């Protein structure tokens, strides 16, 4: 167990979680007395998504996202559970840091959106310019802050300079020092109702977007682009693009197969909550889809590693992704039916 003491003397339990934003949200709610798991928060906040943003480049490579936009999980989960929360952005870094110090002194723990590159407690492999990493500041210490980063196993120390840079970094999706904390958390919220809302919203986002780069259509769009990439970009460049997708799929921030497993964990919990076997079956199906995503990652990694010497080709990747798309479409259609039959 990782127990930290905040400035007000209240104990704070640090939990290791698979995704920064849902981890932060569930920790903030838990601190206020609402015990809710990471997976439930993820499902209620409709965290699962897909989008291939070929026109937004990060380190020269297009972004593929496997989750909804940063900040959405906290906002949506908060709304659906009836939590009142405060969010603040700043123009002036000094003001932003002063406000943070003030809140911490009062004993409030605060969620922060940061740029992961400037957080030097991370090892090199985590560090790239991505403005959507979330963490919780627990209290001020000499020369810095004690922070609970849900991606790491234990709470860590962060230099004040690092944190200021990370909170007020530049680039796409600038955080502007965004900080957030719940001001009121209901003790017995209607979790079932929130789950239904979250699931319906997820189905809508995955199935009914009109823009072809999002949702299930987005997966097919990406599949086609990957299939054509060796001819378009040359083999080496195509490998780099593929490697980037796999890294996004697994690595921090955006993480595909991991998110599928997390959603399966949510469906399992929801299935127990509603006593619904159908949801539990869907959870199994989601796990199977997650396994296909993982297979996609493995085949892609093999292509990258062996430079096309094996039978793993870009066409095979295309087939795997198309299967992913077909099965996810079927799953969300089924979920859409099931969720309408659930009773609050």
């Amino acid at each position, binding site marked *: 167990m990782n127990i930290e003491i905040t400035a007000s003397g209240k104990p704070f339990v640090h939990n290791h979680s698979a995704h920064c934003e849902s981890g932060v949200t569930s920790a903030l709610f838990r601190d206020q007395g609402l015990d809710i798991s990471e997976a439930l928060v993820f499902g209620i906040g409709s965290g699962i998504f897909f989008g291939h943003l070929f026109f937004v480049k990060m380190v020269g490579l297009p972004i593929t996202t496997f989750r909804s936009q940063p900040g959405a999980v906290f906002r949506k989960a908060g709304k659906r559970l009836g939590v009142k929360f405060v969010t603040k952005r700043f123009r002036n870094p000094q003001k932003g840091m002063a406000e943070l110090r003030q809140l911490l002194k009062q004993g409030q723990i605060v969620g922060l959106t940061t740029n992961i*590159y400037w957080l030097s407690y991370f090892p090199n492999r985590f560090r790239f310019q991505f403005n959507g990493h979330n963490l919780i500041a627990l209290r001020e210490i000499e020369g810095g802050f004690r922070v609970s980063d849900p991606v790491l196993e234990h709470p860590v120390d962060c230099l004040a300079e690092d944190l200021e840079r990370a909170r007020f970094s530049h680039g796409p999706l600038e955080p502007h020092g965004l900080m957030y904390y719940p001001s009121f958390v209901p003790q017995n919220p209607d979790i079932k109702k929130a789950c239904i809302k979250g699931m319906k919203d997820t189905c809508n986002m995955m199935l009914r977007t009109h823009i072809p780069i999002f949702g299930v259509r987005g997966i097919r769009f990406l599949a086609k682009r990957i299939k054509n990439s060796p001819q378009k970009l040359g083999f080496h460049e195509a490998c780099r693009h593929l490697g980037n997708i796999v890294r996004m799929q697994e690595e921090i921030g955006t993480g595909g197969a991991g998110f599928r497993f997390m959603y399966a964990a949510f469906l399992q919990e929801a299935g127990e909550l509603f006593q619904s076997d159908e949801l539990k079956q869907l959870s199994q199906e989601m796990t199977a889809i997650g396994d296909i995503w993982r297979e996609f990652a493995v085949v892609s990694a093999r292509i990258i590693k062996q430079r096309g010497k094996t039978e793993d080709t870009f066409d095979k990747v295309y087939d795997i992704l198309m299967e992913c798309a077909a099965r996810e479409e079927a799953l969300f259609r089924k979920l859409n039916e099931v969720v309408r039959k659930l009773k609050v």
Partner: protein
Amino acid sequence: MELEDEIFNDGLPKAYYKHDDNGQYVLETDAPWAEKVSCALIISGNRANLEEIRKAVLAGQKSPIYYYMEMRQLTSGMLAKAAGIAVFRVKRHFRPEIFAKLKPSVLNRYTNALRVTLEELKTVPNI
């Protein structure tokens, strides 16, 4: 040791949802193989790119600002915003002959944005 083992052997594992034997989800900390390979590919690509730029700077084709920008994984647009200098000026400063004439006030803006010292900014590490 291979690069992927090296970069993942730092004692700071991430958590992954996995099925345990009873079909329940639990958190585990072993990174999947695919993640290691793709992460190593990107990092080795970045390192090779940086090395090339370092040589270009030493050969006098680029200014050190370009090297440090690439080291911080920034683009010229992001650097311009962070330093408060127009993009076209930043791009102009990539030319060594123009970089050599920069005033200290401009250099200071770059040192703040790139988080390097003034001495570091004037050269690149010569290994």
